[in-house]
């Protein structure tokens, strides 16, 4: 076995090991915990895939956090006013797309600094959501809590009831996989879809090329700016779904700063996954698991040492720094990332 493939298998093995050990040590809470890890993973996965499209096209995006926050706010607001979670989802996507457009304008059209634009977008979202929230609802920046059809309700997968009796597989299927909101399944389906788009379509090939060597794409007669704008638009849609999921499914309404750094954890997961879709699934699930463990056991007692919850919360960031340092499987970003493309005249 090559060392490279071992490295790739590391995260899935780690994730599986954590799940199995957890199930053996404390099976009651493990099922509950892994179930919630799946829910906590969903916004991370969506935002991570969003960042993947943007960064594979050569546009850094540290504004994932802001776009998610904006989407969460607009989704919750519209879902409350219309009573429909689906219209809320559309509004969430629109809110996130608006910020994506600003990012595209600044970093592609005007060839500005992509990182600075991302920072600005994060602040813009953090200020505007509270400002508008107070203006519309007078609740100190919250939206009223959502009920009924204004939230995405859990759905039962087909055959979940019939398979419940089957040991192991039935348990996993009906207790863990079934009974989440539709957005969780959309997020999961987006992983193979993204893989397919990137590796099996013409658009995906060009997208990857424009992130590595935009001049070659330009020479081939394909517009670099149009491709990058398209990538950023996809990024906006996915961040929009992520934010809508946070506000209308994971919780029942918007609260101030509700993304709580998830955009940055998604960014960390993207590096952890080395900008690849399947690895993104495992990386975000790992980070979801860590969050679930920290929630279930505020002070994790391992017998010889007690791990405080703060450490578990910081672990995604610490792991990312270690990965970035290149000691365990070096992460190399798309080569043209962060560079505005100047067309030759």
């Amino acid at each position, binding site marked *: 076995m090559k060392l490279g493939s071992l490295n790739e298998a590391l995260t899935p093995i780690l994730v599986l090991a954590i799940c199995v050990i957890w199930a053996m040590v404390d099976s009651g809470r493990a099922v509950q915990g892994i179930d919630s890890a799946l829910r906590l993973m969903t916004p991370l996965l969506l935002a991570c895939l969003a960042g993947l499209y943007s960064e594979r096209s050569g546009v850094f995006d540290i504004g994932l956090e802001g776009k998610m926050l904006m989407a969460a706010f607009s989704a919750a607001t519209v879902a409350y006013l219309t009573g429909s979670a689906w219209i809320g989802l559309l509004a969430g996507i629109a809110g996130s797309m608006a910020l994506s457009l600003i990012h595209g304008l600044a970093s592609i059209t005007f060839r500005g600094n992509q990182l600075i634009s991302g920072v600005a977008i994060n602040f*813009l979202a953090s200020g505007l959501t*509270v400002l508008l929230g107070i203006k519309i609802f007078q609740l100190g920046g919250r939206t009223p809590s959502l009920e009924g059809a204004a939230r995405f309700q859990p759905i039962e997968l087909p055959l979940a009831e019939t398979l419940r009796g089957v040991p192991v597989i039935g348990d996993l299927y009906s207790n863990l996989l079934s009974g989440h909101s539709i957005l969780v399944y959309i997020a999961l389906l987006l992983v193979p879809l993204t893989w397919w788009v990137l590796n099996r379509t013409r658009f995906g090939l060009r997208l990857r090329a424009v992130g590595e060597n935009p001049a070659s794409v330009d020479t081939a007669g394909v517009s670099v700016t149009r491709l990058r704008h398209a990538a950023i638009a996809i990024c906006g849609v996915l961040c929009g779904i992520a934010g809508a999921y946070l506000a209308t499914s994971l919780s029942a309404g918007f609260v101030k700063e509700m993304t709580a750094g998830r955009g940055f954890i998604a960014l960390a997961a993207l590096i952890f996954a080395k900008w690849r879709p399947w690895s993104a699934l495992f990386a975000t699930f790992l980070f979801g698991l860590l969050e679930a463990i920290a929630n279930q056991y505020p002070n994790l007692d391992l017998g010889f040492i007690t791990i405080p919850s703060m450490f578990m*919360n910081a672990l995604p960031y610490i792991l990312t*720094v270690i990965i970035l340092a*290149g000691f365990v499987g070096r992460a190399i*970003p798309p080569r043209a990332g962060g560079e505005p493309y100047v067309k030759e005249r």
Partner: protein
Amino acid sequence: MDKMPKWADVILTPLISVLLAFAISALVILAIGENPWMALKTMVTGALGSSYGWGFTLYYATNFIFTGLAVMVAYHASLFNIGGEGQAAMGGLGVALVLLYLPLPHWLIALPVAMIGAAAFGAAWAFIPAWLQAKRGSHIVITTIMFNFIAAALLNYVLVNLLRPVGSMDPASARFPDATHLPKITDLAATFGMTWGEHTPVNVTFFIAVLACFLTWLLIWRTRLGYEIRVLGRSEPGALYAGISPVKITVLAMLISGGFAGLMAINNVMGESERLVLNAVEGAGFIGIAVALMGRNHPFGVFLAALLFGFLYQGGGELALWTSIPRELIIVIQALVILFTGALDNMVRMPLERMFLSMRKRGDA
């Protein structure tokens, strides 16, 4: 040949950018159904209309000078240090440890020692990202973001589990000894028989901040190290060719940058709260980005921009107090300033360049 005269580059472009940011802020205020003119008046009276207002404005400005200088020094080496927030938080820890565990009889002795503690902790927190950037090529923006979160978690742990006095529920350290309290400027004014800015937190750190601006100017434009930092910032191959070690200069620039961010703790932790509380930095590390961008990475510009943001901060507080405009308006203004002076710089610059070029052509003809 330059496309624009220097004054247009240094003054006109940022000025137009800032005006654009403010114009859109005014539209935002209009959109939430308030009067922008009234808002401006409230802010000016609240922040600049009395010595009380000035006391707060200058206190905030002191914070922003330090974090602005931090971003600026790194920027000259073309490193984007987003980690000012974490470095300033760690600087607070440095100050707290020094003041709580060393017997320091007088503030004149405590101040330099605490400054060393603050700068050392801030610099140490910048060291790992710097070293990883220099040696392993790990992108400093991502690592410093990660280190902000790690610092927050670490500080949370230290305050809750280690520094919290027995029996206290509040996640904060014990109060620092009375002898180490820094004199407020209002106390200094009182010794001269004047009443100025009573009950305001601005303290002697303000003078240190002004001094720091001057020293940074000396460092960047009048020393060998500053020259090497600027060369590296312009071109890494150029630096290598000139015999400058990119590793050494990257690490040094980030240590200075982290040190400045850490020094902010002298103002907010030692000077104001006089104990270490959770989230003492309150976003000042990020405002440093706006301040450095707006100040065109020059210490004097940083000083002016810090004053402006000090005014916005104090004025924003007053807005929340007297009108129904929430404090968060300031975050929007801050975002717009970063957007227009930083990311959308070319949007203002390109038409201006075209204008100056056509003016020059007409002059030649």
